[in-house]
């Protein structure tokens, strides 16, 4: 078959290298005020008194707002959250983590706003605090929330399991087969515990919001990946019809999940409403660190296996630390929970997964969405099992990887499986050989490690798109997909241009503006190229139908006899009877042709068994790492890494590589050094001096395989799939090199040295 259309690179590349990309922080409005926030300095306390009078009296201060001012208002609701409405825009009565916003100051001059913060006096009655999810589950633990928080209009497939008075924010369970019978049939049963810490997304552009509230409307320019959920929530808070709320999203300077759902928008909009002036809030880096994090988790994994290497049962208990507010935690623990089933054909699976409130910054969506934590557990454990059974970890994986017709952990029969090919490609790329001994050179030792993962995409979900075929034959695509560097606009332009067979420079993909661009659930979950891409295909088909009808009328033929090619409609077999799209539109006096498309997936899981449709299709990835460990310092350097990912059809080969290479760099940091370090709830490394990101010096030689299967005619998103394999592949390589098995991320020199000493001391 002929290769479908592709484009390499980004359509707005020139803007990107000249500093002209439009970000939210570039926007300002006449009369705009700057907001600064006073934040809690204690993890859990009652606010007994706030005195903001000195701040209010400071010349240049326009408004000082506290939770006290909000709690009895009837015109706005001061609580938000995508599942539970449990997060106040400013602390009301109580603070629940160090960094919880307590008061906001508005001033025209940012220096004055900063000065005013220091004039606000807050008195606290300190309460016992809890930081560890296991401790938080004890009966004697302090309660982060005094009563169960109110549930909002939430995801249709999400069932909430919460206790009446506990720190369990939500619980998910999965029951496939009969796990106890599975363990009874197993020749070996292994139980191990794995931990991942909280890390931060660290988008170089921190959260920012500019809000205006006047004339019965609320408008925000915001750094959000989820414009429509934000719009709906603002409408609810201000008791407005959704049509009265407008969310505009310029390009994002990185998101990685951290810019999902309401963050700054509710507070900034309320401030603008009360001050009757536009307000901008732009977080400093230390504030970004305490706004949202990846979930820290403890996973206890018990796996039963036959002597021939077939896994027959797995039981996972997952304690996700969701922090002080639910955010999307109640949903993430579902995905992270069932993900512990892995890309393996296991007949009996049991999962209990908990989101637990603690007095730490809220945890939410983070690239990988729970799967990184799950994969760290199951891919590390599989390697441990291989070592215990004296078998090759590559063969053990191959033996268990899902193939077409198997059932995944949620009970669905899976098709279009490529796990074996992906693992094989990754392994071959780094020269994996089971018999290869670690290479010792001086005080360093080198070895290789593997991993393979499965990830769902949000299901059910809905995307819609509109297109305008203009009077000159050019196309405007109206979409609410957010461009954050993943190249979604270019991918959509490829699809639109291909459908009408016009040059890609004739297509313009819109900015997000909910007044104009139609509904999209969210730019997350590696879903946009697939979901929005399909919605756009439907919209383009709508326009194609109209063009074909116009041409059929014009040339007095059946529309089946017309072909659309090269920007023209032509009668098949009669090339002289042909008209440009622009001519057809103007002759018919149509102005433009409007097309609309909706793409919606169905699914969801049974709340008792976790069985059903977990994902419209399953993302598949594998990784292989070669590391060098310094035996004197414990330092791990990754020398080579190969990521293999299933892409279905690649629309943009360069962007596909970039997303995969980026996932690998992202995972490298989480494997080796990224960790939010707390002392008594106080974050100790909320700056880029103490919190390390992967830089050029950490970069291994990277290889990428984006595997296609054009016959399947399906696009798979690849924004996250290459991330979860990174951490276990590196950990497994470190084990092969040194015999040291690290079960808690990150793999720091201290842990490696401690492991080496334990091995030496027996």
């Amino acid at each position, binding site marked *: 078959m002929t290769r479908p259309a592709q484009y390499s690179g980004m359509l707005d590349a020139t803007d990107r290298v000249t500093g002209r990309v439009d970000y939210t922080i570039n926007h300002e409005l006449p009369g705009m005020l700057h907001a600064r926030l006073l934040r809690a300095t204690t993890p859990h306390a009652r606010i007994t008194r706030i005195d903001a009078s000195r701040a209010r009296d400071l010349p240049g201060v326009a408004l000082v707002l506290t939770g006290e001012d909000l709690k009895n208002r009837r015109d706005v609701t001061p609580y938000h959250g995508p599942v539970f409405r449990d997060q106040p825009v400013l602390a009301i009565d109580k603070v629940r983590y160090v960094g919880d916003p307590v008061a906001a100051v508005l001033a025209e001059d940012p220096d004055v706003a900063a000065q005013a913060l220091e004039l606000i006096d807050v008195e606290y009655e300190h309460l016992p605090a809890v930081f560890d999810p296991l401790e938080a589950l004890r009966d004697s633990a302090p309660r982060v929330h005094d009563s169960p928080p109110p549930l909002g209009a939430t995801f249709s497939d999400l069932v909430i399991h919460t206790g009446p008075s506990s720190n369990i924010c939500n619980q998910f369970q999965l029951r496939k087969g009969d796990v106890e019978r599975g363990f009874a049939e197993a020749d070996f049963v292994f139980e191990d515990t794995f931990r991942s810490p909280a890390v931060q997304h*660290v988008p*170089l552009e921190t959260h920012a919001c500019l809000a205006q509230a006047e004339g019965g409307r609320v408008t925000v320019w915001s750094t959000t990946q989820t414009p429509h959920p934000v719009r709906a929530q603002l409408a609810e808070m201000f008791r407005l019809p959704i049509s009265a709320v407008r969310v505009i999203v310029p390009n994002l300077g*990185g998101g990685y999940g951290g810019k999902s759902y309401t963050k700054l928008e509710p507070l900034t909009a309320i401030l603008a409403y009360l001050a009757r002036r536009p307000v901008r809030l732009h977080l400093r*880096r230390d504030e970004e660190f305490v706004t949202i994090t990846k979930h820290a988790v403890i996973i206890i994994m018990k796996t039963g296996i036959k002597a021939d290497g077939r896994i027959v049962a797995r039981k996972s208990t997952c304690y996700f630390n969701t922090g002080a507010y639910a955010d999307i935690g109640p949903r993430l623990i579902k995905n992270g929970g069932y993900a512990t089933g892995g890309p393996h054909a296991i007949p009996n699976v049991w999962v209990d997964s908990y989101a637990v409130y603690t007095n730490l910054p809220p945890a939410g969506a983070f690239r990988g969405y729970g799967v990184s934590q799950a994969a760290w557990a199951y891919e590390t454990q599989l390697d441990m099992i291989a070592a215990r059974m004296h078998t090759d970890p590559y063969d053990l994986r191959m033996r268990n990887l899902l193939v077409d017709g198997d059932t995944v952990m949620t009970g669905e029969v899976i098709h279009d499986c490529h796990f074996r090919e992906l693992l094989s490609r990754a392994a071959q790329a780094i020269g994996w050989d089971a018999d290869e001994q670690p290479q010792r050179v001086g005080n360093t030792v080198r070895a290789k490690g593997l991993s393979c993962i499965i990830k769902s995409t949000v299901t059910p979900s809905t995307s819609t798109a509109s297109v305008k075929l203009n009077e000159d034959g050019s196309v405007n695509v109206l979409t609410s997909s957010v461009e954050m560097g*993943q190249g979604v606009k270019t991918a959509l332009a490829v699809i639109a241009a291909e459908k009408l067979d016009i040059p890609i420079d004739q297509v313009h993909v819109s900015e997000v503006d909910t007044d104009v661009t139609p509904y999209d659930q969210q730019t997350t979950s590696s879903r946009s190229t697939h979901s929005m891409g399909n919605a756009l295909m439907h919209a383009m088909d709508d326009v194609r139908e109209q063009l074909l009808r116009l041409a059929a009328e014009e040339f007095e033929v059946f529309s089946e006899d017309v072909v659309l090619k090269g920007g023209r409609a032509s009668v098949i077999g009669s090339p002289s009877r042909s008209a440009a799209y622009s001519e057809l539109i103007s002759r018919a006096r149509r102005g433009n042709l409007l097309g609309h498309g909706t793409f919606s997936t169905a699914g969801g899981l049974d709340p008792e068994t976790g069985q059903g449709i977990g994902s419209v299709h399953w993302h598949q990835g594998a990784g292989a790492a070669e590391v060098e460990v310094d035996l004197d310092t414990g330092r791990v350097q990754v020398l080579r890494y190969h990521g293999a990912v299933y892409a279905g059809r690649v629309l943009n080969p*360069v962007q596909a590589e970039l997303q995969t290479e980026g996932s690998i760099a992202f995972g490298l940091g989480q494997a080796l050094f990224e960790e939010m370090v707390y002392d008594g709830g106080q974050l100790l490394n909320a700056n*880029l001096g103490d919190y390390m990101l992967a830089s050029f010096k950490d970069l291994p030689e990277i290889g990428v395989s984006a595997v296609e299967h054009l016959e399947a005619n399906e696009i798979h998103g690849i924004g996250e799939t290459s991330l979860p394999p990174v951490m276990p592949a590196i950990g497994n390589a470190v084990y092969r090199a040194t015999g040291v098995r690290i079960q808690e991320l990150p793999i720091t020199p201290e842990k490696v040295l401690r492991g080496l000493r334990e091995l030496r001391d027996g």
Partner: protein
Amino acid sequence: MDEDGQLTLSLHVNGRTHRVKARAHHTLLEVLRTQLKLFGVREGCGVGMCGACTVLLDGKPVSSCLLLAPLAQEKDILTIEGLQGASGELHPVQQAYIDHTGFQCSYCTPGFILSTVALLSEHPDATEDQAREYLTGNLCRCGSYVKILESVMDARDRLRRP
């Protein structure tokens, strides 16, 4: 200094002299963004660790978030907006970044490009290792490093050509 604590500064930015008002504690980054609206200069970390706010000061890369604006007087300041030629043609380094797509979200890109310009002016024959070392102070959270390195090496070859 006026009654509002503002100093009048004279800054030479992208070949032109600007008179701006700033307080003594304002950074060059703040002044370039808020007064001159040079939005290619971007704050990432505020402590000189990420390189997103890199500008060239007399040809040397500096973190504009760490430099107090008054101290930047009498220096030639180059931002990404000043890198294009008089008639808008792209600098060879910019063209190389386009040709290799050495970016994703692009927030860090102006800093990387300016650091690359400085690297290749100091070391016209820079090796890959030298480039990695020199650019370690610029962070790309999207992880576009592979393509950035390709861009840098290609830019080196373009600039070396007579």
